[in-house]
């Protein structure tokens, strides 16, 4: 049951109130019922005892003297809405019955001596009523007691019945009163609760209005937490945190777009200027050839940027299908170094691979190859003539570590923290004008997609190292 908080609060309040009222009403009804019934039964009992006092035992026989002046028997004699009584002796012989009963009988309840039993019944004329069954020993006549033979006290059973219309009417009047009071209370509760809920939820409306006012280009506007109820402060804080993170992400994206535009506009300007200069006057064929060659080089460079950008976007969008397979690292590094080896040898760059044979990772071969060849190319590009490139690998702590080092790095330790940022590049790279600063960003993303992590560091003697931590091949990870 989600829906609106407002209706939920209202519903819960009203349901709770109804439940409380229902329990209260039932208890009240039971108490009133007991009190009414108690009064009725006490009166019935008194009538029964009064009649019983008129019953005597004389000469071993029970006689009912109901006709006397002492007892008002009019209620039993009236033709309309009469009351009833019936008297039996021990043997079940009817000794007396009220005239209203005619020849009929009243049902006898399960009473014992001196403990009357009350029960509801339908009176002989059909009205609802209640009866008391009273078992007693009638008093013994005096002269009888003076005779020599011992007197045996006999028992008699008296049933008196009377209609309950009176208390039924009182009871239903009370129930009606109780019901309407409860209904009124619930209605009032609904009204008050609606007001209270509206008042209580006002800060939410205010927050909603503040959130609605936030524009995509103005994400740095934090929602002021003051004036908010204490319960909402954590929500506002989380929202502000979220906004800050969003703003950071947006800023990165904006910076990236601007950088991408810059990185593409500059070579484009290069091609245009080169060709326009070439066309500005009649030239020797060699000059045209030079301009065309330069343009082709720039286009090749742009093509790299564009495909790197595309790859980066795919990696970040999680659109690269992975086909993990065990990749032996030593062979892979050697294979990927081969195309770079010739150029490096000419510059007297020494290359050493200390990756142990048998070290294997489970990874998508193409993606891993892209990361490794980018790192090798980067190392070859930035190491000095006569410098040294070293690749080392080991299994440690259930992970595979692969490190790429090259000498003659001119970055500071602080700058080394930026090498994985898109389009960031050190001054040396800028001056060379070749690298567009996407290579290491690609490496970082690719390694992340492979489930690993890439870090970069510079030692005080200028050795630049990129360390990859990769998950091992599940089966044959050498320990």
């Amino acid at each position, binding site marked *: 049951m989600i829906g609106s908080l407002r209706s939920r609060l209202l519903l819960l309040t009203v349901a709770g109130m109804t439940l409380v009222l229902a329990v209260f009403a039932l208890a009240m009804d039971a108490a009133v019922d007991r009190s009414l019934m108690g009064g009725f039964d006490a009166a019935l009992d008194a009538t029964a005892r009064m009649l019983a006092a008129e019953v005597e035992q004389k000469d071993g026989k029970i006689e009912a003297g109901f006709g006397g002046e002492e007892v008002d028997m009019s209620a039993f004699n009236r033709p309309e809405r009469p009351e009833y009584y019936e008297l039996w002796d021990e043997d079940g012989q009817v000794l007396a019955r009220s005239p209203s009963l005619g020849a009929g009988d009243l049902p006898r309840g399960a009473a014992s001596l001196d403990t009357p039993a009350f029960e509801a019944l339908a009176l002989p004329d059909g009205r609802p009523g209640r009866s008391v069954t009273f078992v007693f020993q009638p008093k013994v006549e005096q002269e009888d007691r003076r005779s020599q033979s011992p007197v045996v006290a006999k028992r008699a059973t008296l049933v008196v019945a009377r209609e309950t219309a009176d208390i039924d009417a009182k009871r239903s009047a009370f129930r009606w009163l109780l019901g309407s009071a409860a209904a009124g209370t619930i209605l009032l509760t609904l009204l008050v609760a609606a007001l209270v809920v509206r008042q209580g939820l006002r800060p939410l409306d205010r927050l909603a209005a503040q959130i609605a006012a936030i524009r995509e280009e103005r994400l740095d506007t934090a929602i002021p937490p003051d004036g908010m109820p204490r319960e909402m402060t954590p929500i506002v804080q989380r929202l502000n945190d979220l906004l800050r993170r969003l703003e950071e992400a947006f800023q990165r994206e904006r910076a990236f777009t601007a950088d991408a535009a810059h990185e593409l506009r500059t070579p484009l300007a*290069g091609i245009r200027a080169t060709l326009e200069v070439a066309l500005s006057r009649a030239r020797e064929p060699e000059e045209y050839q030079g301009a065309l060659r330069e343009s082709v080089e720039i286009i090749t460079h742009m093509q790299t940027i564009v495909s790197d950008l595309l790859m980066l976007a795919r990696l970040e969008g999680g659109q690269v299908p992975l086909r993990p397979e065990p990749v032996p690292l030593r062979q892979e590094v050697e294979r990927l170094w081969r195309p770079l080896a010739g150029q490096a040898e000419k510059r007297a760059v020494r290359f050493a691979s200390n990756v142990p044979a048998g070290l294997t990772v489970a990874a998508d071969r193409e993606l891993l190859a892209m990361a490794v060849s980018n790192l090798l190319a980067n190392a070859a590009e930035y190491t000095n003539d006569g410098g040294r490139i070293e690749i080392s690998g080991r299994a440690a702590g259930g992970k595979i570590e692969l490190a790429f080092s090259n000498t003659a790095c001119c970055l500071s330790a602080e700058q080394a923290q930026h090498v994985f940022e898109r389009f960031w590049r050190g*001054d040396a790279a800028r001056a060379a004008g070749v690298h567009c600063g996407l290579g290491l960003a690609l490496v970082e993303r690719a390694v992340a997609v492979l489930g690993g992590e890439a870090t970069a560091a510079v030692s005080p003697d200028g050795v630049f190292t990129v360390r990859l931590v990769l998950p091992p091949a599940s089966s044959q990870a050498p320990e």
Partner: protein
Amino acid sequence: MRVLVVEDYPPLQRAVAKGLREAGFAVDATGDGEEGLWYATTNDYDVIVLDLMLPGLDGLAILKRLRSDGRPAHVLILTAKDTVADRVRGLDLGADDYLVKPFALEELLARVRALARRAYRAKNPCLEIGDLRIETTKQRVYRGRESVHLTPREYALLEYLAMRAGETVSRTDIWEHVYEFTSEADSNVVDVYIAYLRRKLERPGKPPLIHTVRGRGYSLGAAP
């Protein structure tokens, strides 16, 4: 007219420098911010073409330093950043003009020429001294109604003298503003080109245009 190009993308730097040289400017070029600032503060440039994103020192920092040093060179910012905020920031820091990459070479040359004219307070692209007329946009020279054909170097020398018409211009000034000092180390080359110009411009029976001011230099004008 002497121009400094500070641009870190080598192919673009080469093309712009070549285009400007062929248009008759003396050009120095560098791809490094620090070096650019050094060039700009040690030489007297008429126009500086400045990229914004540079290694070492970025373009706006260079601009700020130049302006706080009171350097009069006209600065044309050349950049891939094209938002209004970027342009306003550059112009507010004292740039004279702004060109977004990629650009047409023609436009770059026209803007540099306009800035160079402004350096000599000449707004009219057509310079007239007596019956000598120089159309700087088309780089054409007329003596009366007669067209005079000049080589790019001769033209650059004449234009520089014409911009400062009436003033005495020293050989050093000419050497610094017209020829790339890396290409010709000999200041005699100025005298040689003055001689070429005289041969092409002077007409018998008309008053001379180019006057030698002994020990100080040359002056262009109807009268000495």
